[in-house]
């Protein structure tokens, strides 16, 4: 019997996945467990394995398609076996999650049904559309039930017929034109101005090419906007004297094969402070502040297609060496796309390190639901007075951003100072 291949639900909040590419053509033999296609979720890319041995009988969606989770995307079975014409939902999932199934079905419906059933508009909107020769299919609806209201048609009418015709000829999107006429009516002059604007070199930047927004970058973007708009954030810069730590690290690394990075020391120092001071390990609940026990430090890793923050779990219980190994393995996995869901979930605080790029200070954006993110900056040489002697010291900025709904300035500053004191007395980190 043919076995369905469906879009997996790879995380609790995964709603849909993108088919990056099929690895098998229809008719090709596949082994159970063999990679059948690659998909991209909002967090990772992964391979979907063949659910059975046989041939790939059909593919309902092609490369690039965005498909709701648990939707059947193909079948594997014996050659010549009959399969449904249209994709269906996986039966097992439908039983356990009826509400989600309904949602998925509705999502697919519009393409099939709505175009043939006519347009949903109020009687007044229809009357206005007929009287003004407006095609209701062209009118964006704003009604609460997705219906076209009178105001929507009025907005359309507020574009003069001449302006509309010129726009059509020149391929101008009228919704992007600001009207200068009565009640913002779009006039001929407005359309001509828009055309001139588009044709004038130098006014608009020349587009080299466009690249599609990757699933990951889309999610990163959405999360950034959410954090940036929701959180009243403050960034505090604290300068740290790294001279001793650099010397200490050099000494330790002398006889080591796996060299410890400055970042490892910083993660360890942060973990050590958090062992005793958990005031910044908080999240905002619906009506309460959630205090976390676990010191799970998220480490921001830059990727070509975006950004991901794998988590060093229970960093306070790990030795410097264990932290170093964990960070190395996580960032290697992140770069090869091999992170599992568990690897990037559950952080209680995050670190973003831009030191290697010579950044003096910056304003990192809090990684929700964390309350704090620690930005690590470049180590710079500075002349300083030490015991009345001018010395060359190595200074580094810690740019710590906090969610002011959860953490106050004194708490954040005291936390930064504890991290600074530890980094300035590196032996203490290991004690």
């Amino acid at each position, binding site marked *: 019997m043919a076995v369905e291949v469906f879009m997996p639900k790879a995380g609790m909040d995964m709603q849909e996945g993108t088919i990056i590419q099929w690895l098998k053509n229809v008719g090709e033999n596949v082994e159970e467990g063999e990679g059948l296609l690659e998909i991209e979720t909002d967090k990772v890319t992964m391979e979907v394995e063949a659910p059975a041995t046989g041939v790939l009988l059909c593919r309902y969606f092609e490369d690039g398609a965005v498909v709701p989770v648990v939707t059947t995307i193909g079948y594997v079975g014996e050659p010549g076996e009959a399969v449904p014409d249209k994709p269906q939902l996986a039966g097992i999932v439908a039983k356990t999650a009826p509400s989600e199934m309904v949602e998925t079905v509705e999502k697919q419906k519009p393409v099939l049904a709505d175009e043939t059933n006519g347009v949903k508009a*109020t*009687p*007044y*909107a*229809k*009357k206005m559309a007929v009287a003004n020769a407006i095609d209701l299919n062209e009118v964006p609806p704003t*009604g*609460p039930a997705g219906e076209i*209201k*009178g*105001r929507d048609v009025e907005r359309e009418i507020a574009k003069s017929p001449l302006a509309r015709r010129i726009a059509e000829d020149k391929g101008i999107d009228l919704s992007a034109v600001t009207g200068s006429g009565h009640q913002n009516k779009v006039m001929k002059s407005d359309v001509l101005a828009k055309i001139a604007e588009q044709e004038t070199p130098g006014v608009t930047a020349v587009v080299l090419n466009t690249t599609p927004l990757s699933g990951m970058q889309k999610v990163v973007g959405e999360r950034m906007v959410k954090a940036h708009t929701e959180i009243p954030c403050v960034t505090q810069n604290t300068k740290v004297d790294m001279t001793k730590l650099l010397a200490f690290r050099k000494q330790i690394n002398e006889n080591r094969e796996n060299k410890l990075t400055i970042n490892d020391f910083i993660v360890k120092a942060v973990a050590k402070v958090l062992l005793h001071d958990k005031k910044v390990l908080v999240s905002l609940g619906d009506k309460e502040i959630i205090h976390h026990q676990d010191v799970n430090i998220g480490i921001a890793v830059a990727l070509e297609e975006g950004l991901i923050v794998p988590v060093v779990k229970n960093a306070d219980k790990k030795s410097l060496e264990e932290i170093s190994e964990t960070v190395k393995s996580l960032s290697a996995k992140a770069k090869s796309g091999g992170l599992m869901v568990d690897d990037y979930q559950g952080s209680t605080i995050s670190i973003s390190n831009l030191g290697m790029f010579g950044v003096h200070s910056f304003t990192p954006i809090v990684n929700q639901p964390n309350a704090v993110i620690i930005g690590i900056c470049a180590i710079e040489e500075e002349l300083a007075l030490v015991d009345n002697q001018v010395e060359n010291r190595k200074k580094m900025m810690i740019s710590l951003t906090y969610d002011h709904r959860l953490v106050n300035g004194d708490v954040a500053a005291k936390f930064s100072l504890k991290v600074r004191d530890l980094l300035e007395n590196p032996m203490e980190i290991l004690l």
Partner: protein
Amino acid sequence: MPKKEITYANAIKEAISEEMIRDEEVFMMGEDIGIYRGAFGVSGDLVETFGEDRIIDTPISELGFVGCAIGAAVAGMRPIVEIMFSDFMTVCWDMIVNQAPKMRYMFGGKVSVPMVLRTASGGGTGAAAQHSQSLEAMLCHVPGLKVIVPSTPRDAKGLLKSAIRDNNPVIFLEQKLLYRTKGMIEEEEFTIPIGEADIKREGKDCTIITYGRMVQMCLAAAESLEKEGIDVEVIDLRTLLPMDTEAIIKSVIKTRHALVVHEAVKTGGIAGEIIARIADSEAFYYLDAPLKRLASEDVPVPFCPVLEKGILPDEAKIIATVKEMMA
């Protein structure tokens, strides 16, 4: 034009008094309207002015005295009959439905029934399921009757005078909770024609069609909504039968939104009729949101004041419904 302040109850008494002076065929009968001065104090000292022959106390037998009034009307008098609570109309249903409204038609116009049946209607007083109903929709289902529900002292006086002068049976549904409310009326004599709605507030965004006690509530809601940029028109129907359909349609064509508010229960209520008239008219083509009605829940009026308040329409519910329509 000089004006004076008067309560709703006294405006009704003035109408009765003026008409009794004007026409000696006018008289009133009902329970406790004489020495007791009326259950809601409407008749007051009328018995002292006009004597017990014209302000007649009756036994507790609505079927009997309403029948008596119909007989007097057929014989050429102009009776006003008071039923203490409108709920008790049901015990004289044969008179109200089968006799009074049918006679002129069945006798080929040889007789008429110039009777006014006044009665106290509506809830909000903690008077429970048998003393709080709003039964106007049942009356509107009977051709041959006229049904009036005044919302202000001025409307009450002007419309009652017209009702007394009308040659057909008129049911005059007074609003219990409005008896003590005050309003301004002319010093001079005036009447208000039956069958004309009154636009109590002009607006351009949404029409609320209502009557009786709900009018003040809708006006208050309109004030609040104005602060949120929604300009509401409030139509007080005043007469439910015959209904001023033209005023409704004209307004809905202007505002493109219509909400009907009444205190009577929703199912089978007059709101359904009003909405049907809009849907069945030119106004349909101007609608920019579904037609809505706000009415009491379909339950007997509870005795518990909290529950009674819960089932009745109120200002907050009106505001919420209008906002939902204008979304």
